[in-house]
């Protein structure tokens, strides 16, 4: 297993290896939801929350259950079901114990099951051989990184309404270009810390 300190992985997952800007994950909901700032904050929070739970749980299942049983090839199937199950569970628990939070995050939770960032984080810790603490740090860091990217994008798109964009570039086209510029800005962090 790699010997990188969890704190470094945490920072790197937010800035240098941002799961959205460097690994392109979670683009679909990123483009659809970043239209409004309020929804972006809601979805961003929900992603941080779900990712912080799913990655450690998947780690335990992968290394404590599938590896000893030599069933690693079933991991895709298990991972996607773990994510769907946890999302359901979080939804039920929130509804019961924190209705206020449930109403803020509620509509976003089903969207998260098919958010590739969540599944991506669950697959990357296998590829990169993280140990448990590194995985926890990576999960939380990736969630925060994704949230920062979508909230920043929503704020930029709000300003963009008053800009004169070429008609053919309006909407998704300009969003992609701005995402590119954001990715460039984030790659400026590259020298600070790096993982793979």
């Amino acid at each position, binding site marked *: 297993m790699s010997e990188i300190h969890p704190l470094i992985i945490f920072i790197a997952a937010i800035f240098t290896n941002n799961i959205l800007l460097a690994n392109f994950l979670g*683009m679909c909901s990123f483009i659809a939801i970043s239209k409004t700032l309020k929804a972006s904050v809601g979805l961003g929070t929900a992603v941080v929350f779900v990712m912080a739970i799913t990655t450690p749980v998947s780690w335990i299942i992968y290394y404590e259950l599938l590896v000893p049983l030599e069933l690693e090839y079933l991991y895709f*199937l298990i991972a*996607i079901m773990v994510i769907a199950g946890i999302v359901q569970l979080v939804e039920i628990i929130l509804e019961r114990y924190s209705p206020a939070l449930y109403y803020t995050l509620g509509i976003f939770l089903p969207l998260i099951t098919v958010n*590739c960032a969540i599944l991506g984080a669950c697959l990357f810790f296998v590829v990169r051989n993280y140990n448990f603490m590194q995985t926890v740090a990576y999960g939380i860091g990736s969630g925060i990184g994704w949230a920062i990217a979508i909230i920043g994008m929503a704020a930029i798109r709000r300003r963009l309404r008053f800009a004169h964009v070429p008609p053919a*570039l309006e909407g998704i086209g300009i969003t992609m270009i701005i995402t590119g510029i954001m990715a460039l800005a984030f*790659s400026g962090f590259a020298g600070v810390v790096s993982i793979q």
Partner: protein
Amino acid sequence: MQILSAENAKVFSENIWKENPIFRQILGICSCLAVTNLVFNTMIMCAGLIFATVMSNLLVSALRNYIAGRIRMIAQVVLIAVSVTVVDLLLKAFLYDVSKQLGAYVGLIITNCIVMGRAEVFAMKNSPWPSFWDGLGAGIGYSIVLLIIAIPREILGFGTLMGYPIMSQDWISWNIMIMPPGAFFMLGILIWIVNSTGKKVGHDEK
């Protein structure tokens, strides 16, 4: 049964250009951007995606009468995950180096919205044979866009095409094209070009 009836041919060809999943709905661009800095890897990824779309469409369509409406999402996801697992095992068996390079992105075909979208929109309502053509069309339509993005990225970023050098000796590679921002710019420009031809990309608020 006719191999390609007029109706199936229509389903097939519509998915390639008129209803192209990327231009029409901006679906499934995650993996689209991640693997497109080398044409060869892109082609392998496309082959995997076409296989997964076709296979999951066939499975969903064959089992559509047994899937209860309330749990259809999770049932579809499981069938898609099965198809993608097959792709992953095939890659590991026959193209190990490429599978190492693609890494987690093969698994991420599961959450590629195109596969899920075709299963939900088409395969749940149609019999297996039309679903097969629908999946094939959607997969090929997606692959064409991926290749349009990948070819300039590799030429400008490495000065090569499929690994063969095609630029002159003193060509200076544009590093930005290999890096993630290059992919975003390429897709943005591509959408711009397609929009200029009068085709509207995506369902936008305007």
